[in-house]
């Protein structure tokens, strides 16, 4: 007789300290993050039977990475979806557990995008895909800074979005970072500081650009029957959805609209937007956050700037945004940049966020985005509602 299918829950989270400079390689940061997450969950490494490595910088295949870390598993994969890798990796871990392929899966990310490892045979992957290698990089395209500059300028042109509106996102996140000792950027920032910060890819300024750093983060997902004996309360994924490529074949070229427009209903199938006690939105640039708020339906298309004007996005406000400071103030430890939003959400839902705790947080939104398509929008977007109760 078939047993009832388990429900997969988040049982543990771990974050290393983050560093502006490091000589440690991605795999070392990932190993540390896994150990921390297992410790948080109260699980032993021998109970782990699944591993999702979120990386686009470790060239080794996933079974080899698992072997380097001494894992014997029933399930392994690499999640190579840029900033969407961790959240999408968690969704795959959940699916694997609920299908009976594994009972305890660790999703781990981390790395070091600043100081490359010194091993000469460790060839790091070149710019990520053919369209980038042959059709963008040869122009000195300035990486995402240049492309988000194109997107932001057109959004400002079409909808009248202002630097003050975008700046409010960066400034609010910086204020949140002052309550987070792990954040690397904690000095106060004003709107004037934001607007006068150095132009990198006009209209993109220094204060728009996420700062790369070194570090790691991991999340333990397990079957509910495993979680029953653990000290910390389980956190549930109440909904999840993802979209790979949006408007790739037209009919209209889309730079300023993302696949979230097709996802919003799925993400909010069990909860309404006004139920969200916080939002941890992937923030490599303030303009990316603004596009998400529009495409997820918090604001009409083109009215994201007005929404920011009219909404208190600070802790204690109507929609507390990136309560740990987000990547914009914490730093982006390679693909663990997508993981820190999940880790912050879990801390908030467990009520262990300390000074920056949102009172009574029981449901919150987390998103991940990755890859900018040639002359298009985000190649991968995903979102989930996490909560203290099952949906």
């Amino acid at each position, binding site marked *: 007789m078939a047993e009832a299918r388990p429900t997969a829950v988040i049982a543990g989270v771990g974050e290393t300290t983050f560093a502006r400079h490091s000589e440690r390689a991605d795999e070392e940061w990932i190993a540390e993050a896994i150990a921390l997450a297992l410790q948080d969950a109260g699980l032993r490494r021998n109970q782990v039977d699944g591993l999702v490595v979120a990386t686009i910088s470790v060239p080794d295949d996933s079974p080899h990475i698992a072997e380097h870390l001494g894992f014997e598993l029933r399930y392994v994969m690499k999640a190579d979806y840029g900033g969407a890798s961790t959240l999408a990796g968690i969704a795959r871990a959940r699916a694997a557990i609920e299908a009976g392929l594994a009972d305890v899966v660790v999703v781990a990310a981390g790395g070091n995008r600043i100081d490359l490892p010194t091993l000469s045979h460790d060839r790091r992957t*070149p*710019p990520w895909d*053919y*369209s980038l*290698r*042959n*059709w*963008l*990089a*040869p*122009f*000195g*395209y*300035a*990486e995402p*800074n*240049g*492309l*988000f*500059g*194109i*997107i*932001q*300028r*057109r959004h400002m*042109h079409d909808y009248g979005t202002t630097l003050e509106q975008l700046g409010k996102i960066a400034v609010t996140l910086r204020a949140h970072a002052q309550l987070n000792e792990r954040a690397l950027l904690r000095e106060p920032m004003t709107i004037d500081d934001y607007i006068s910060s*150095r*132009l*990198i*890819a*006009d*209209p*993109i300024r220094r204060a728009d650009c996420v700062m790369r750093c070194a570090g790691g983060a991991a999340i333990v997902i397990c079957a509910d029957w495993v979680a029953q004996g653990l000290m910390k309360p389980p956190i549930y994924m109440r909904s999840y959805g993802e979209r790979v490529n949006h408007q*790739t*074949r037209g009919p209209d*070229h889309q*730079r300023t609209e993302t696949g979230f427009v097709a996802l919003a209903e799925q993400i909010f199938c069990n909860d309404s937007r006004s139920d969200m006690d916080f939002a941890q939105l992937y923030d490599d640039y303030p303009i990316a956050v603004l596009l998400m708020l529009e495409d997820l339906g918090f604001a009409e298309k083109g009215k994201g700037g007005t929404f920011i004007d009219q909404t208190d996005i600070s802790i204690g406000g109507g929609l507390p945004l990136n309560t740990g400071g987000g990547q914009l103030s914490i730093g982006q430890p390679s693909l663990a940049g997508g993981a820190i939003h999940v880790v912050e959400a879990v801390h908030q839902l467990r009520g262990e966020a300390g000074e920056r705790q949102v009172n009574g947080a029981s449901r919150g939104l987390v998103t991940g985005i990755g890859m900018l398509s*040639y*002359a298009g929008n985000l190649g991968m977007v995903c979102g989930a509602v996490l909560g203290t109760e099952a949906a």
Partner: protein
Amino acid sequence: MSHPVAVSWDKPFWESAAQGRLVAQQCRDCGRLQHYPRPACIDCLSQSRDWIRLSGRGTVWSFSIVRQVADPAFAGEVPFALVDVELEEGLRITSRLDDTSVEIGDRVQVTMRAIATGLCLPYFERLPDAL
């Protein structure tokens, strides 16, 4: 890693570019025009294709003024405009324009520029309003 490397499905682009012509793939089965070059038609997956010469003219859809680049090979070239150009044929191409006084809606024309490896890249320049 900043130089393009020709692959099986984009060789005709580079050969035409070397002769000063901007071309794009057109599907023989469904007529779809596409840029950048793809291994197959993005509408019907056919690999039967022609290479169509484009006018090389279009308008600036949006741009950023790049003042800092991560790739040191381009550090001496800033500032420049990274542009999305809407070509007359409806295709969107991302390229570069060295005149940083560019505005959205400006009319532009392709100009091929040879790079160190011998391949030519399609850059753009502004057309005078009168033309």
